[in-house]
Structure formats: C-alpha cells, structure tokens
C-alpha cells in the first residue's frame, strides 16, 4: 500500500486510486463493488471498528519501537452512554503526545492524527467507485451486492437479532391492532420499527461522520430511512402472510406437509403467538432505539450488548401501576392469593395479589381467562404485573407468577417472552422450580435474588437473600449473611469446590450455604472480619470468612475454605459457640456405648449394642416374612412381582417390599442404634475412606434404614453427577438410608471396593426393617 501511513487498510483493492477506465462487464464485478461499498468505513459501526483496528496497529508499532504499551482509545470498556467519553479523549491525548515525541526518534512510526483522515478517504473512495458503477447496466448485480453487504454488516444484523426489535414490533402492534388486518398490520409495524431503528442509526452516523466530512445529505438520509421501512414492511408482512396462510390450511393438509415445513410453520406460529401476546407498550419502541444504539456501540467495541434492563424499565413506566393495584381491595389477608377484582369483569379477570404484613397490596398480576372462571389465559390480553417500586427486586413478581401457575393458569405459555429480561428470567426459574423439568436451574444451586440498588445476591430460597445470621461484634445483635452474586464465581470456583468435596460437600456453594446457616462457632478474623467454623475442632473444618458492609447492615461472604485445627486454634477463643443438630457433625459425644471388642460378632463385623441384641426388631426371617406378600402362596401359584404382573408364575417369585416402616421416621439419633457396622479401611479401601471423609465432614454416622425411599434418594444424590468409566459413584449416606439423597457426598471409587462394602452393608442390614438405625464406624 502506498500513502503516508504504514498502517494497513482493509481491502487492498482500494489502494488503487485510478478512476475506472472501462465499464464493469459482469454481474460479479458489480456485486463486489456494491458489497465493498456497503462495508465502507463510513457508518458508525465500521468507523468505530476501523478506528480500533488502525489504532491497535499503530500502537503495536509504537510498542515495538519504544517498548512502551499504550491503551487503545477505542478499547472495550468505553460506553456510548458516557457523553464525555473521558477515557477515549484522555487516551487519545496521551497517545498523540507520545507518538509526537517518539516520531522524532523513530520516523517510521505512523502519525495517529491521520487515522481518521485515511478512514474517511477510504470510505469516500469505496462509495465513489460503487457510484461510478451504478447506472452502467446490470443493476441486478449491484442490487444483490448492496443487499448482501448491508445484511452482512453488524449494524443490520443487530437490528434483526436483538430481541427488543421483536418486542418493539409488538409494542407498535398494540396501537394498530384495531385498524388493520393481520398482514398489513404486521407490515406497517415492521416498517415503523425499521424506520425508527434506521433513524437512530442515521443520527449516530451523522454525528460520527461529520468531523470526517463524509456525512450524507438530508436527502440520502431520508432515502435510507424510507428504504429501511419498505424492506422491513415487505419482510414482516411476508412472514405474517406465511403465518396466516399456514393457519388457514386445513388440519389434514398441515399434517400432510413434510416435517421440515411443519417445523418451520411451528416456528412462525410461535412468533405470531409472541407478537400477539406480548403486552409491551408502544413506549418500548423508543427504548428499543436507545438499546439498538447501545448494542451497536458495545459490539463495535468488542463486548457483549447488555440491553434488557432498558426495555423492562420502559415497560414498567407504561403500566398504570396504582390503577392496577386499585383493582383489588385495599385490605386483605397477608400473603399471596388469587382474588377477584373490585370492579365487575365478567368473570374473566383474576388478580394474583401479594399483600404485606398489614394486608395492603404491594404487587399484583392480572390474569384474563378465555372463559369465565377458566384457567386458560387469553393470549390477546396478555399478562400485566406491577410491584410497588420500593418492593421491587425482592422476588415478589416471581411469587405472583408461581402462585398463578400453581393454581393451574398457563402463565408460562403467555409469559414465554419473559426470559428476555432479568425479571423474566427470574420468573422462568421460579416456574421451573414449581414445575420441575421445565427449567435449567440446578436444584441444589443458588437462587439469585435481586434486591434493588444493592445488587444481586445468591440465596438458598426464592426471594430470600439471607443465608443465615452471624453476630455483630460488641453487641447482641445478629446481621444477615449474604453472598453477592458478583462474588460467587470467586467464592465457588473449582479450587473451592475441590476443598469442599474434601469435606464431603457437593460443592463450594453447598458448603457456603450450609456453614452460613449452621455454623458451630464464630471467631474474630483479621481486619474486623468474622470466621464461621463448622465441624469438629480437632480435625479439618469448613470455614467462611465474612466482612461487614460499610453501614454494618450485613455480613458479606469473602472466602469459602477449610482450616486445620491448628489454624482454628490460632484464631483464638471463639466469640460465640452454638449447638448443632444431632447426628450431623463429627466429633459428637455419643450417648450410646460403643461396642466392646468382645461384643463384636465374628471378628469385628457386626457389633452387638447394649440394649439391643444385634438383631433388634424382627429377626431376618421375621422381617422378610412380614414384608413378603404372598409368602403363603402354594408352589405354583402367582407371586407378588413388585406391582407388575408376572408373565408366568410356575416359579414362585415374591418380591419383598420394603420392610414396614414405623409411623414416623425421626431424625437419626444415637440412643436407639440397633446395629453398629465396622468397616475396615484395609478390606473396603476407597469405600471406607469415602465414608470416613464424609463423616468427618459432617455427614451423619447414624443412619436410618429407609428402603422405600431408595430410588428418590439415589436420583437426588446423583443428580448432576456423571458416570466415570471404570468407577462407581459411591454415595454417603447411602440411598437406602433416610439421611441419603440430596446433599449426600458422592465420590467415584473402585467398583470392587464399592461392591464389597455394599455386600457387607447389605448383609449387616439384612433383617432390619425400615426405620431401624445403624451406626457406621471405620476401623483399621
């Protein structure tokens, strides 16, 4: 490339500055000219992108010459919303001065003052070249190139892909619903959206190009806006035409269509449903325009576009909240309930109302059903939710949706667009929890709770950001413990997960939430911090470090970890100690005498416990008989086959249902342990070590047999884990015990160790009914 700069420009073709001497002959030539012209750096997006690239190249050369690194004025991190552009201005000023000085020594360095000049020159040349081609015949190639070039620009793609474009379309549609037919309405709506978006783009372009002298005339800008409107109308109307056509087809004809057509039709039907049911107001259009500008800027600077909050706020602003709250009685029973409105509504309108402790409504969700007293919601009416500003971001809207879903209203179908906003995402998660299988939120993972201006927090329950309470030094008061969502990645990273698993937890989050709620002792930490400790102080314990917020209103978790007994001792005497649930912590003194060596049956396997006989409860045969249905069936008769009919029953098969359980299953205590199971580390290897580690980390060693719950426990314990070839996932507490299930420690171990330990435990529990308690001990 020739020229005063040694920086590279995109499209080497345009380094040739000679005017064309021959007319383009082929469709390809015209296509490429139009394509390149469409990508010329004379639009906001391309200018910004080109500036960033050329500055980067220049700064690289500066670095190579001087060894000094300078910041790129157009690096991500700058925000269009910052009108002062302080960072950009400052970096440019610094760079200009640095370059000026450096160029005195390194003459080969480019002059950054010329970057904008060259961008403008390049853009002008591309446009001129394309203009010379126009009107020379074969306009189809130019048309295709222009369309392809425009469609391929991030500017245009964003307008198509950014979800708010669809939302804004719907908003405009609300205005036009009563005036136009479906297809025409969609076309006009899309035209309005397209023109609006284009107008924003043109305004941005003009402001950006003017200093470069490449701005377009008012006539050109007008043409661009009209063109965008026409294109959008054709596209939008066409899609709606397809939707309407498909809808008019007879069901038989639909079914006969190829599967690909049916799939496509379902997609456009879904679009039509979304468009027809989304309750966004027209004000969303202006929000969309603002969003589009922000998104363009974000993408140009190489960072993700964050858009949804703005549309949400625009939506809220348009809802007449006080009026909506006035639709329900001013006083009622506290809590969330479904109520009829104050005014007559023909039986189709219901309100889900969240009332505070005084019974005053603070949030309301309006439902309109298709039939009076029905549960199917009217898609055309959509959903409207309003929460008093001071009570927002506390999960109230989610509670309203969940209550509606619980009552059988198909809110999720209507609220399908909700995942576009943080509120919608929270609703979706809430619905998923209510209807398992619908969502992706991990059941054992944190719930994220938004609390307005103080940010998002990880909570253990929907709507509640408090993980527990910890004392405030120097007073009797306790402050809530919270984990800011922004800290969670650091607090629960892979390293913390690994440490937590050493303690028998599933994850660092599991440890965090458990220790925050169930700490045993509180120690003073450095710099006013607090260290919560859970576990036996003679071994490795789980800890949380807390730091008070500036106003001393909350404790924030700053560290999740484990500490040795020495490290805990180094913290000094605890500020406070509190009790813990029996059977959940290691190191408890037991109320049950341990088995004496001479009481250990047959080499130390199953020990007799004073008060029991080693076979407390029914004898093995008794238990089996009691649990066996059809035990008296004569040979040749049908046996119980576990709820499924036997194919044939010449062989008597009697599946034993789980032994009858006591009327209640109390938490495992130690006073009524019926059998002690001693597992040898040597004989049972990894299985014994897993059990030992899990007990040391706080899992109970006294377990309650509950064969009836084994399937559910197994599923809960293994949820989220994956099989590992050559290993078995060992659970502790095992699934056949009441204490098993969610929260059990799961560790991949040697299959032979797992089978051996399982055979031993199975043998030891033989004859014990559900509800019987055993204690597991690990020995050498």
């Amino acid at each position, binding site marked *: 490339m020739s020229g005063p700069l040694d920086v590279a420009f995109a499209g080497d073709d345009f380094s040739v500055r000679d005017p064309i001497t021959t007319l383009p002959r082929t469709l390809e030539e015209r296509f490429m000219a139009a394509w390149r012209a469409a990508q010329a750096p004379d639009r906001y997006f391309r200018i910004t992108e080109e500036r960033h690239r050329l500055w980067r190249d220049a700064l690289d050369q500066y670095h190579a010459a001087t060894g000094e690194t300078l910041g790129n004025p157009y690096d991500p991190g700058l925000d269009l919303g910052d009108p002062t552009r302080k960072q950009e201005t400052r970096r440019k000023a610094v760079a200009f001065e640095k370059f000026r000085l450096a160029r005195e020594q390194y003459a080969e360095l480019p002059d950054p003052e010329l970057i904008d000049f060259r961008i403008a020159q390049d853009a002008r040349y591309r446009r001129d070249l394309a203009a010379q081609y126009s009107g020379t015949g074969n306009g189809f190639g130019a048309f295709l190139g222009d369309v392809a070039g425009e469609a391929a620009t991030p500017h245009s793609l964003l307008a198509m892909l950014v979800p708010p474009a669809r939302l804004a379309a719907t908003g405009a549609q609300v205005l036009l619903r009563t005036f136009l037919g479906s297809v025409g309405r969609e076309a006009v709506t899309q035209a309005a959206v397209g023109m609006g978006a284009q107008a924003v783009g043109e305004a941005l372009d003009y402001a950006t190009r003017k200093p470069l002298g490449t701005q377009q005339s008012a006539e050109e800008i007008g043409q661009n806006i009209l063109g965008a409107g026409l294109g959008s109308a054709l596209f939008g109307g066409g899609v709606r035409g397809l939707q309407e056509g498909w809808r008019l087809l007879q069901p038989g004809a639909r079914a006969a269509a190829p599967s690909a057509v049916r799939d496509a039709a379902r997609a456009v039907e879904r679009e039509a449903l979304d468009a027809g049911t989304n309750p966004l107001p027209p004000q969303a259009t202006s929000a969309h325009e603002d969003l589009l500008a922000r998104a363009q800027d974000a993408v140009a600077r190489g960072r993700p576009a964050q858009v949804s909050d703005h549309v949400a706020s625009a939506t809220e602003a348009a809802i007449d909240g006080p009026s909506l709250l006035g639709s329900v009685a001013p006083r009622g029973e506290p809590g969330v309930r479904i109520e009829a409105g104050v005014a007559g509504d023909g039986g189709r309108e219901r309100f889900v109302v969240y009332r505070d402790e005084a019974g005053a409504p603070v949030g309301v969700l309006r439902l309109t059903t298709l039939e009076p007293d029905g549960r199917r919601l009217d898609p055309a009416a959509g959903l409207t939710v309003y929460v008093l500003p001071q009570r927002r971001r506390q999960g109230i809207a989610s509670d309203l949706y969940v209550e509606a879903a619980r009552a059988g209203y198909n809110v999720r179908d209507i609220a399908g667009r909700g995942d576009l906003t943080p509120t919608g995402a929270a609703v979706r998660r809430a619905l998923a929890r209510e209807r398992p299988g619908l969502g992706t939120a991990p059941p054992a993972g944190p719930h994220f709770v938004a609390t307005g201006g103080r940010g998002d927090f990880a909570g253990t329950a929907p709507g509640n950001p408090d993980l527990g309470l910890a004392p405030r030094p120097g007073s009797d008061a306790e402050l809530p413990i919270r984990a800011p969502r922004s800290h969670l990645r650091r607090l629960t990273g892979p390293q913390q997960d690994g440490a937590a698993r050493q303690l028998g937890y599933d994850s660092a989050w599991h440890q965090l939430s458990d220790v925050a709620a169930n700490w045993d002792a509180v120690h003073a930490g450095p710099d006013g911090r607090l260290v919560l400790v859970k576990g036996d102080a003679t071994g490795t314990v789980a800890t949380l470090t807390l730091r008070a917020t500036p106003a001393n209103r909350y404790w924030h978790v700053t560290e999740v970890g484990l500490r040795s007994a020495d490290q805990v001792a180094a913290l000094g005497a605890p500020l406070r100690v509190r009790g813990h649930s029996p059977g959940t912590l290691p190191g408890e003194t037991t109320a049950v005498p341990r088995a004496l060596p001479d009481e250990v049956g047959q080499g130390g396997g199953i020990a007799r416990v004073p008060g029991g006989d080693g076979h407390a409860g029914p004898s093995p045969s008794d238990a089996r008989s009691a649990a066996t249905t059809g035990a008296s069936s004569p040979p040749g008769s049908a*046996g119980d*086959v576990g709820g499924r009919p036997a*194919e044939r029953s010449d*062989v*008597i098969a*009697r599946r034993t249902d789980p032994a009858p359980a006591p009327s209640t299953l109390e938490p495992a205590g130690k006073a009524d342990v019926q059998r002690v199971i001693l597992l040898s580390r040597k004989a049972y290897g990894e299985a014994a070590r897993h059990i030992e580690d899990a007990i040391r980390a706080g899992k109970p060693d006294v377990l309650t047999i509950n064969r009836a719950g084994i399937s559910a426990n197994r599923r809960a314990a293994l949820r989220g884990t994956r099989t590992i070839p050559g290993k078995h996932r060992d659970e502790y507490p095992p699934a056949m015990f009441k204490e098993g299930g969610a929260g059990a420690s799961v560790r991949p171990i040697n299959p032979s160790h*797992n089978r051996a330990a399982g055979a031993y435990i*199975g043998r030891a529990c033989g004859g014990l009914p559900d509800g019987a308690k055993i204690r597991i001990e690990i020995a050498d």
Partner: protein
Amino acid sequence: MITASFVLDVSYSQIVIFPKSMENPYNHWTQRHSDQGFAWRPGCVAFGALTEGGSHLVEVSVVDHAGDVAGDVIRAIEVPFEVPVDDDIEVSGVSGLAFVSVPPGGYLLRCEFLPPAGDDEGRVRLIFARKDKPRFAVVRADEEISIGDGLLTTAEPAAP
C-alpha cells in the same frame, strides 16, 4: 420351562443369589472378582451388574438346557448352583430382594444381562438349567469384564 419375573431394586451394582436360610450370605468382592463379573462360593453367588444401581427387571426360569445365548445379551456368566431341599432362593439386589421357589437339585445357573427395557435401568435373566453340566464360564463378556489368568471360583463371605 417355568418362569417368573419381578422388579428388583439393585444397589452397589450386584445381584446376589443364595438360599433363604443361609446364615452368612453375600460375598466379599476383590478386584479379581469384580473384573470377572462374579464372586462365587458354595451356596452363594454374586453377579456384578452393568449399572451402579437402580431398578432391574429380573426374569427367572427353570429349564432343562440353557441353550444358546441370545444375540441381545450383553453379558452372560454361568456358575454351578445347588438349590437345597425345602428352601426358597433369595435374589437380592442389596436394597431389594425377592424369593423364588426352585425345585431342589444341582443346576447350571446362567445370569444374562440384557439391554434395559421400559422404565427399568437393567434387565436380568436368571436361568436354572437342571440338565446342563454345571461349570464356571463367562459365556459372553462385555468391555468391563477382564478374565486374565482364569476364573476365580472361590470367595469369602461378606461378613468376616
């Protein structure tokens, strides 16, 4: 042929067969047992399951001859098994168990693991063949089975 079927909950990846009145059932597994897929001692045999656990549909049949192993069988292991007089046979999955009544006598017991069907996580066929010569054999091995230096035909009880 006489048959029965039932659903058995399996834990610790094993299905154990022994007489109901056996005093010390269940076998201790070593690495070699786990590799060959079974642990056997007189009166009690434990077969390693294909899965870690879960409900299994178990089909039990008493036949003259076990016959060929069907094509859909994933793993098939044969062991000698003696059914005592006047005693049921217990089929245990550690967490679940069932009793079957099998005519007394010496059998070739073949345990076949098949692909799961329906909602169950495994399907097992136990064939008691009264006229086949009892033997130890891994008739069909899947990738988890490794026989090495031959079959180990002894095992210790699970409880010492």
